[in-house]
């Protein structure tokens, strides 16, 4: 641990909280740093860290992935997606592929890409064949997809847009009347693009402490200290503990590209449902690249468990920060990274996968910590 992290830890240990507090994070990268550095075990016991909706792969609508699988099966397309998306399970009938990976094994042309640029390169290399890019991700990842279209994509490249905005899900949690947290650590790379100002509503509307954090233990502990201090003082404000990357207004050009290419609409979150203002749609000038317009819908209204998490899986509660990963009865038993059942065990940003990678195997570790 760096000297600076040690400094923040000492400062945190010197605080006197009026009652235990719960701090929500909404970024898989944050959760990864917290879990791998063992931050929970070194914090004072009256500070609880809750992993919230920080995994775009986990909340990508099941219907969108099902749709992508059907396009690859029936429309003669090359389907490209970020690697994490390939193993996410959908609730398809028996004898049908239940993930993009299974569809690929069954002969479909499905490829993992690490960048929208790779999708463009694949489309250019095969001008006669349509390429569909399943574009999931939060703002950080949606901005490059917008940039790709703004720069000019080949005619045979179509986007199956599944990107989501993060602040609206937090707004929904805060408005739910059952708020399970006292403070927010806001996502650093979302704010790098969008600016920290998006999170001002947490303070203004809900009088809740908030701080934008980066991904080092230093930055995370600084943000945890900041919100704890705000809580004690009863004077919440939006702090920025990641000034290296997060500037006022974010990346204005990237924001302008998002606005030029996307409209804002309600978005569906797997296991959660529709969240107002959390989704994107292609604006009219870019609809020639809309995969949903180009290819007929394969949606089957009668499909069992459409949109839901897999049977027995508690990913929806994990995503909302209602339970810890190891409180799901499948965690570490039926559901492991090698044989994942729910999306939170598939993605590198899923809380279940992160907890597993940091050594949690079973048992109510977090609960003990919380109630101690």
């Amino acid at each position, binding site marked *: 641990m760096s000297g600076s992290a040690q400094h923040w830890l000492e400062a945190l240990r010197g605080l006197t909280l009026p009652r235990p507090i719960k701090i929500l994070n909404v970024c898989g990268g944050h959760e990864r740093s917290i879990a791998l550095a063992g931050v929970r075990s070194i914090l004072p016991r009256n500070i609880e860290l809750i992993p919230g909706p920080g995994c775009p792969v986990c909340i990508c609508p099941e219907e969108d992935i099902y749709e992508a699988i059907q396009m690859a099966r029936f429309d003669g397309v090359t389907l490209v997606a970020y690697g994490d998306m390939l193993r996410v399970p959908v609730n398809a009938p028996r004898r049908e592929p239940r993930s993009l990976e299974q569809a690929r094994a069954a002969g479909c042309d499905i490829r993992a890409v690490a960048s929208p640029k790779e999708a463009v390169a694949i489309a250019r290399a095969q001008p006669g064949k349509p390429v569909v890019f399943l574009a999931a*991700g939060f703002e950080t990842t949606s*901005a490059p997809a917008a940039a790709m279209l703004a720069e000019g994509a080949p005619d045979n490249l179509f986007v199956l847009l599944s990107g989501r905005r993060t602040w609206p899900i937090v707004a929904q949690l805060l408005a739910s009347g059952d708020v399970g947290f006292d403070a927010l650590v806001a996502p650093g790379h979302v704010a790098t693009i969008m600016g920290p100002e998006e999170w001002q509503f947490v303070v203004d509307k809900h009088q809740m402490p908030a701080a934008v954090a980066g991904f080092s233990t230093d930055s995370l502990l600084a943000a945890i200290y900041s919100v704890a201090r705000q809580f004690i003082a009863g004077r919440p404000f939006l702090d920025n503990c990641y000034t290296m990357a997060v500037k006022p207004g974010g990346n204005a050009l990237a924001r302008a590209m998002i606005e030029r290419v996307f409209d804002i609409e309600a978005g569906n979150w797997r296991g959660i449902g529709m969240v107002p203002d959390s989704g994107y749609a292609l604006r009219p000038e870019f609809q020639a690249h809309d995969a949903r317009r180009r290819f007929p819908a394969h949606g089957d209204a009668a499909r069992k468990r459409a949109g839901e998490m897999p049977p027995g899986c508690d990913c929806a509660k994990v995503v909302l920060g209602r339970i810890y990963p190891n409180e799901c009865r499948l965690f570490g038993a039926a559901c492991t990274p090698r044989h994942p059942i729910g999306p939170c065990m598939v993605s590198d940003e899923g809380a279940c996968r992160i907890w597993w990678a940091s050594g949690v195997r079973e048992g109510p570790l977090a609960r003990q910590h919380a109630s101690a």
Partner: protein
Amino acid sequence: MCLAIPMQVDSVDGFEARCSAKGIERTVSLFMLQKEAVAPGDHVLVHVGYAIQKITPAEAQSTWELLDEALAQEALVAQA
């Protein structure tokens, strides 16, 4: 998926740059930083092939140390 990695710019050609980090080289789009002066030697945060922000060399260095630490920790757990 939202993690961005610091890379150093080796050369610039229009909206594209060749960047490197830890001996790995990549072509990176500067399309979202086109209003900023980006020159060889500069450091940028890269996410899914796009530079999203310029950072200082010191910031790049400290981020790399963090990532190294995290990777080492993950490898340790995987062996256990």
